[in-house]
């Protein structure tokens, strides 16, 4: 075969190969697959359930594959980077404090026009939760689950110390203080507290229901200014009451870490702390220790100041769709499915949060023989959205507000003065 013939033969072979390759790569319309990405911060307990829910969606939508990407730490950074680089996930979990920033910049799709299409009935959702994601009749995410803040207590320890457990309904600061003092014990007489009453609520998300339940606040109703609110008499009185648990009554230990005292939960499990501030996310682990007989867990509300109405907070997250998503219909359907009844039931088995659907939450409460779910549900009515879901610069407020009680506890500064200075500082930074 001459060189020219060889080339011709090769060319022919290539020409035959082309349709073969096209058959392999250019699939017909029916065999095409779409991959949708879901971004969340699911931890070990949740990630299996989230993938299970995503798989159910894939089964119901042939040709659609859903990948669940879980970013446990630095979630906000990853999400912002993806959106900024023009490669957003199809659906992402929107945390309540991120709502204002995302909505103001038009980064999340208004889901209200599609409610009928995806068969999503907002009336099924707790109104206290729904309103966090609603603004001017727009719905910015389908609520996933939520929690108010409560005080867990170890009933077994209360029995052991022969102290009556906290009430299931409302209680005042005085009643709380009396209980706290009763369970605070120096068992070996060395002058050091061996059994603490409670952990110190140093972080804003922990102490804000205390402030509200004292009739105070940290911002004006429009969320514009902190001066006159963060340093108002009711708010400062709350700071004084909470810090007195550390300084005067030695009922709460304090660690000045932003992530909170790393030992607080451990102390509660081993019976060295009688009560614990937390939300529903702690229930799975508490149930584990409860089942082992280490503790006998009960729930009490956040105490309120005499004369002020009790007021709790609702922390929540929801499934949002980026505005620049490429497959809007599928993304909205997926978001609705992730927040739907079936998904809420699957997720409910983890006990990490209260399902956003009332029917599902009530079902779980009926199944719960310990009464924890019911105790949580009683806290929901009338709860307020967190300030993070209302104002854009909330992270600044949260960061700077650490200093108020820290200055008193570490340097002995006057709380009124510290609160006023921090309020002015926050307003200055926000004005910038």
């Amino acid at each position, binding site marked *: 075969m001459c060189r020219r013939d060889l080339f011709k033969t090769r060319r022919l072979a290539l020409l035959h190969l082309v349709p073969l390759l096209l058959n392999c790569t250019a699939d017909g319309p029916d065999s095409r697959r779409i991959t949708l990405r879901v971004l969340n911060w699911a931890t070990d307990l949740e990630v299996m359930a989230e993938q299970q829910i995503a798989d159910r969606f894939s089964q119901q939508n042939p040709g659609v594959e859903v990948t669940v990407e879980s970013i446990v730490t630095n979630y906000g950074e990853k999400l912002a980077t993806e959106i900024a680089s023009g490669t957003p996930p199809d659906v992402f979990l929107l945390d309540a404090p991120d709502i204002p920033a995302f909505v103001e910049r038009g980064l999340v799709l208004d889901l209200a026009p599609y409610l009928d299409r995806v068969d999503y009935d907002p009336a099924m959702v707790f109104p206290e939760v729904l309103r966090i994601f609603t603004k001017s009749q*727009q719905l910015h995410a389908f609520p996933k689950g939520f929690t108010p803040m409560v005080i867990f207590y170890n009933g077994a320890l209360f029995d052991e110390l022969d102290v009556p457990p906290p009430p299931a309904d409302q209680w005042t600061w005085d009643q709380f203080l009396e209980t706290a003092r009763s369970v605070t014990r120096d068992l070996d007489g060395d002058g050091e507290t061996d059994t603490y009453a409670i952990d110190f609520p140093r972080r804003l998300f922990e102490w804000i229901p205390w402030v509200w339940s004292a009739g105070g606040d940290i911002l004006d109703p429009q969320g514009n200014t902190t001066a006159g609110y963060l340093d108002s008499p009711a708010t400062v009185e709350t700071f004084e009451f909470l810090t007195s648990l550390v300084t005067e009554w030695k009922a709460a230990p304090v660690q000045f870490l932003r992530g909170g005292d790393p030992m607080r939960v451990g102390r509660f499990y081993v019976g060295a702390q009688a009560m614990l501030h937390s939300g529903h996310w702690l229930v799975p682990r508490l149930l584990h220790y409860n089942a082992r007989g280490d503790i006998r867990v009960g729930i009490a509300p956040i105490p309120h100041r005499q004369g002020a109405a009790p007021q709790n907070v609702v922390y929540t997250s929801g499934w949002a769709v980026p505005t620049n998503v490429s497959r809007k219909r599928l993304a909205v359907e997926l978001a609705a499915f992730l927040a739907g009844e079936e998904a809420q039931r699957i997720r409910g088995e983890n006990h990490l949060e209260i399902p956003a659907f009332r029917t599902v939450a009530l079902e779980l409460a009926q199944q719960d023989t310990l009464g924890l779910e019911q105790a949580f549900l009683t806290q929901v009515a009338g709860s307020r959205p967190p300030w993070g879901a209302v104002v854009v610069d909330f992270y600044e407020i949260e960061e700077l507000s650490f200093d108020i009680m820290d200055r008193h506890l570490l340097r002995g500064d006057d709380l009124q003065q510290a609160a006023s200075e921090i309020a002015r500082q926050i307003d200055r930074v926000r004005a910038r």
Partner: protein
Amino acid sequence: MTPVAQKRRLFLGGAAFALLAIACAAALYTALSAVTAAERDLLAAEARIAVGTLRETQQPALLDGVFPDRWRLSDEVDPWLDESVVYQAGDGLAARAALYDADSWYQVGTLLLSARRGSEARIPVANSAALFTLLGSLLLGLLLWVKLPVIRERRAAAVIGFLVATTVIVSLTSSLWLARNWATARLQEATDHRVAVAAHALRLVPDLGDLTGRPGGVAQLTGLAFVLRGSAGDVESPLLSAPVARALAMTDRPSDGRITVDGVGYAVADVGAVRLVGLPYEHAGGPTTTMVAVALIGLSLAAPLLSLAGLAERPRAFRSNLVAWSFLAPSLVHLLIFTIGPLAFAAWLSLHRWSLIDAARPFIGLANYVSLLGDGMFWNAIRNTAVFTFHVPASMALALGIALVVRRKVAGVVFLRAMLFLPTITSLVAIAMVWQWMLHDDYGLINWLLSVLGLPAVGWLSSPNTALLSIMIMAVWMVVGYQMILFQAGLATIPTELYDAARIDGAGPLQRFFHVTIPGLRHTLFFVLITSVIGSFQVFGAVYVMTEGGPLHATDVAVFHIYQEAWEFFRFGNAAAMSWVLFAIIFVVTWLQFRTLEQRLKVSR
């Protein structure tokens, strides 16, 4: 000039010419890309407006008024079609958009839209080519200019180098200027067209009241943010922040249709009570940054050529330099892309109000730097960083002491060395978490040991007085093994004869240490000090894991503060300015160390 030298100079001229060509082409390409991206975005937006208009009016004929001779409908229903897809059709762009029912859910057809005539992005090639040819020829001529008999060779090289550099700078700047002006004009044109189309589409809606009564309805039709201006001056804005909306709604519209609020320009169009608001393309996707980066890279690549130009008539030096530059090239390119590039970008960021998720990134000059002057928190972080640096002499003294001990050949020394070096190769996060537990007030190992000794507990990480000190102690523990290894290497280079001679002269251990060991280790000490100080200015991981800057900002160090500013508060411009200030501080400190210590090293030689 010999023929060989002439060939070399020709080669260099060609290389310079190619370099200039690449840099100019890259600059032009950047501008072209920005315009092309804007054109694609514009067409996609037009397609969305077209299907939105159809959905709202149900009258296809109305599209002729907005997109004359550019659209057609198809019954094709493709469930895999995105909302709108822009693609290359023949010699122009075209878009396909899914046509949905009135509820914007089920696809009922497909709309095909071609790009408007004359909108294809064409770079002013003729002008650029003419400019490039002119300047390139000048450059080539300079390099081939051999008749410099009266000037000595070195001076000739300097003159030629200067002329080459000037020509490269002028060429690049001209290209950038030309391309940028062209791109800006095209982007402005695209913006104006975008807003005009949106306004036109809105005018076609039969009952605008229905649309404005539905929050987001206008935005869904036009794809632009909007404000509704009430008669009483009240403003409703679902998609703009309240202050910006008020400013936009109340400001009179200037002749160019642009309104600037807080340094950000907005293109606006009025349709009755609706004011449509769009961010100009040149603001969101202008090519300036990339073009400046290209120019910087282009200019810095001139260094090898300038180096070689001076050696054209020295064959051996020329060859060795050429080989050296070819070996350096990969790391040089790496350095340019991953070090110089980010540095330049950070400098650019520091002059802008820049947030990761905001499309508007206005130029604000030195405002970020000025605001730093009054930012007490930042200077507190700098002060903490400076205090943290004091762990360096402590760790060096300890490392040197250990190095002197473990160089003796006694049992267990190898094991001890290995143990001391382990922290260097262990994950910082793991170390920090273990130390966090060890330093815990109530359950920490260290306080337990103190209690065994009958001493009071210390609030290691809980007190602002001790938190930074605790991290410094941990830092010493972490680096002492690494420094010890360096000192051991340094000690091995000191001749034993010097010690023997000192001994014979009657020197004791201390005298031998100060007069033999220390002078012998001066270069190692210098290296360890410089690198450790620079490293300590960049401390981040330990603070991030252990204290997150607390308590009361006692451990808020510079890099952690910058991280918070950028990633928690999304003020990247401010963070970039802080980074440059930190860079300047490190630079000055290192320079001072070099100045003072190098003098001493010279004296002690």
